[in-house]
């Protein structure tokens, strides 16, 4: 059931590489659409009554090492899988006028799709690492070939940081497996709970730093603004929309799920780091002059919510965390997509230069309107998916971490501040007469944004359509988290 999600994009990548360049986008679209349809089919087959893994596949592969081909999905990974395929489709249809070497470009995008899908489905730690590291190569190539002016610098920085992230995660996995003397690297075989708290904490910290780079959390974020800004719009959509989500996914899957006891110990610290990220991201975004950089910093802030929610570890907050991953993936993809259009059309991302894009005839009225909507969604305006997710995050986390949650709520107000700055400068005001001979943006260049907007609106009005897929899994996740605590209390009580 799950293998097609790997095979389809791989076949697509091969087909694109072989066939003529003019077919590459069409082929890419067709294959990513096929994998999207397949993941939607999985939704229809998904049993909502089960909290655990479904559609599991298991094939022995390299027994001596403990590496098996073992896949499975639950409510945590399934929505992200669909998001992955959707954003691949969007990325392929992101503005690409004058794009050179389309075959390479498009097959790399499909390889990324396969890599991320594999990481999301892998139930063997080594398999996860393989996918987790594998998709760095296409990303590195995408940034260094199709990136902006400082693409070499950005791509190298990206590769260094994320490779370190992969190494740390690998170290954590190896340590966990060896220390707990598990028979294999199978996720289900690991019995880390039996370890003492100190080794558990060391392992968890290693993983936290590893995934923290990927998310990224302050102060491990420094690779991210450069990378996001230098990458092409299509790459940024994937980077921000789904790639960074692997970090939070790993945190929930391998941190919270594997180390429930240690998790509770580090949770307050995590909440503080998350809050710092939220505030840092928002305040830095306010200070930016470059709209893409502004959106990049906003991403740091919004990923912080996920960490706070994950740290709180209540049913509701973890549900919020996963919902926020999806919501933020959609919104960030839309923002980067639109910023990409603005940059391509106007030739600048400078807030001091851009203005009046709402102009009905000479501006980019539809793009601007969607940008305003995306900004509203990001700022958590009710009726859009950002609100639904953030509200659940706040509600779920407040009981556990009242002060960090309050600070996050205040920072979500800051989101409105920088989006008002962004929108006010770029969309409103007077269109500059000397510059405003922009070309027209046709429907063919905008429809991906409309698709994203439709989904953002739909989930905003009907959040349950998203949440009910996730809920059973978060319930079972959180039960595991609280059981040892209850057991401890039971034993310490005389």
């Amino acid at each position, binding site marked *: 059931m799950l293998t097609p999600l790997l095979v389809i994009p791989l076949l697509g990548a091969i087909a694109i590489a072989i066939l003529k360049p003019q077919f590459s986008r069409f082929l890419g679209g067709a294959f990513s659409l096929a994998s999207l349809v397949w993941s939607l089919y999985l939704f229809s087959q998904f049993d909502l009554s089960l909290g655990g893994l479904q559609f599991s596949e298991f094939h022995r592969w390299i027994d001596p090492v403990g590496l098996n081909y073992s896949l499975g999905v639950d409510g945590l990974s399934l929505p992200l899988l669909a998001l992955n395929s959707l954003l691949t489709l969007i990325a392929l249809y992101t503005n690409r006028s004058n794009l050179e070497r389309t075959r390479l470009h498009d097959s790399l995008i499909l390889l990324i799709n396969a890599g991320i899908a594999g990481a999301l489905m892998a139930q063997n730690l080594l398999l996860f690492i393989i996918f987790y590291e594998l998709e760095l190569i296409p990303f590195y190539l995408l940034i260094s070939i199709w990136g902006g002016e400082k693409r070499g610098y950005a791509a190298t920085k990206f590769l260094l940081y994320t490779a370190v992230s992969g190494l740390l995660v690998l170290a954590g996995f190896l340590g966990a497996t060896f220390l707990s003397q598990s028979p294999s690297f199978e996720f289900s075989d690991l019995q880390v709970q039996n370890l003492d708290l100190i080794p558990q904490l060391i392992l968890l910290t290693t993983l936290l730093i590893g995934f923290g780079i990927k998310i990224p959390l302050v102060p491990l974020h420094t690779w991210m603004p450069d990378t996001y800004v230098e990458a092409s719009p299509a790459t940024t959509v994937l980077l921000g929309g789904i790639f960074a989500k692997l970090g939070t996914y790993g945190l929930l899957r391998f941190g919270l799920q594997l180390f429930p006891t240690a998790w509770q110990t580090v949770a307050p610290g995590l909440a503080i780091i998350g809050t710092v990220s939220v505030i840092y991201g928002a305040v830095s975004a306010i200070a930016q002059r470059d709209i893409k950089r502004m959106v990049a910093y906003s991403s740091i802030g919004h990923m912080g919510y996920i960490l706070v929610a994950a740290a709180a570890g209540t049913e509701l907050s973890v549900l919020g965390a996963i919902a926020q991953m999806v919501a933020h993936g959609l919104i960030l993809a839309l923002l980067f997509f639109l910023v990409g259009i603005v940059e391509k059309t106007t030739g600048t991302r400078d807030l001091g230069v851009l203005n009046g894009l709402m102009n009905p*005839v000479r501006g980019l009225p539809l793009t601007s309107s969607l940008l305003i909507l995306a900004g509203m969604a990001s700022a958590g305006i009710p009726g859009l998916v950002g609100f639904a997710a953030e509200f659940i995050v706040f509600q779920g986390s407040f009981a556990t971490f009242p002060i960090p949650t309050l600070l996050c709520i205040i920072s979500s107000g800051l989101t409105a501040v920088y989006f008002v700055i962004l929108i006010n400068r770029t969309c409103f005001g007077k269109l500059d007469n000397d510059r405003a001979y922009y*070309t027209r943006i046709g429907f063919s260049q905008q429809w991906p944004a409309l698709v994203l907007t439709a989904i953002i609106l739909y989930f905003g009005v009907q959040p349950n359509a998203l949440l009910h897929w996730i809920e059973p899994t978060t319930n079972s996740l959180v039960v595991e988290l609280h059981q040892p605590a209850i057991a401890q209390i039971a034993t310490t009580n005389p």
Partner: protein
Amino acid sequence: MTTTLENPTAKIPPSTHKYADIIHRLEAGGSMLPDTEENLMQIIGIYKAYAVPMDFYWRDLLYIAERVFLDPLPFFKYFLPQEYLDLPNHYAGATADFRVWQKGEASAHPELLEFMDRGELKKKLPKLFHHLWHDRINMEFAEACMQAMLWHQGMGGQFYDYLESEEYLANCDRAIKAYFKGNPLMLGLYKLFPEMFYEKVRELSYYANLGLFWEVMAPVFFEMSDLYDEGKFKSVPDAMDFLVNGIFIAAGRPIYHHVYIGDECYEIIPKSKGFMWLYEAALPYVEAVFYRTAPFRGTKSYNAQAHQVPDEQKDFHYGILYADVFPVGTAGIPPTLLMQDMLHFLPPYLLEYYQNYCRGEDDMLIQLGITFQRSMYNVTSAVIQALRTALLYPLDDPNPEHLLKNRQFFEAQMDRFLRPEARLTDIQSQDYR
């Protein structure tokens, strides 16, 4: 030295003004708009497209001033009766006082009639539907121009003073009483708030004023289009000179305000007051609409406390000569209304021209707006040259002192374009579109 002496403008030293080039061009009998074939084609095309809706504007302005008058609920003031569509233009057709437009008829322009009949939808629907769908001539633009004139007032001429005179109020009084005969409610209101009614009549007098002004301009523009089509215009100055002639032909036409109530005509402003088209209509119109007007709602915010709006009305600079045309397309603002009106009547050569630039069909409203701005710089040049002819000296005057006077006049006119909003520099280049 000897060669330059033959040039009449060389009798005085060159200007050191910021717009010295343009001043020298004006002194050589040129226009503020550079003399290029592209400019000539653009401005003539837009004059024609402007003249057709203008043919509606002037008729309806007179209809409102003369017949609708003080109707408290003027729902149908934009529904021109046949009588006003047939109203003979005094400068076209066989009955003309002076036949400016040689080939045209005195009644409404055929393209206008066709548009009124079928609209943009090209469907024969009841008039009311065309109206509500806004598929019609945007009279709101004409009213906006009228309001600019009403609001600024005091821009020369004797019209404004007369509106405050006892004689005018007495004329109003008779007309108001006759109009509301048998309507105790309105007569009671009149008794309570007479000033309000007078002010309303003053506004209607400006309707008449502007209607009579445009009655001249429409046939002038039609004739220019015909002459261009016949190949009789070779340059932008040709077109400007034709406008100067038109101004002098119409200069002496009376400006008046008559109201028809029942079968009787009430002369609110009688022709015998001697008000003249040039002094009481044309010059105030140019001043109010081309230079001053007021900022439009919805395009840009101004902070009056920060002196972003001038303290003095005479320093207002929101007219077409200073206008930022790019917001055209914003719903409801007067420039959009006018450009929309002109869009319906563009000559084929201009349509084709716009297709080739910028966003083609999509931003035609702005492209034609900028063409309109160019054309109005040419009209303003004509006004400046006409004033120079009337009040100063010929361009080839042998007396250097007279030439210096002309120079001072031109420089004073150009001083008005020194403020950064002026588009005079932009229109020098063909890339501004």
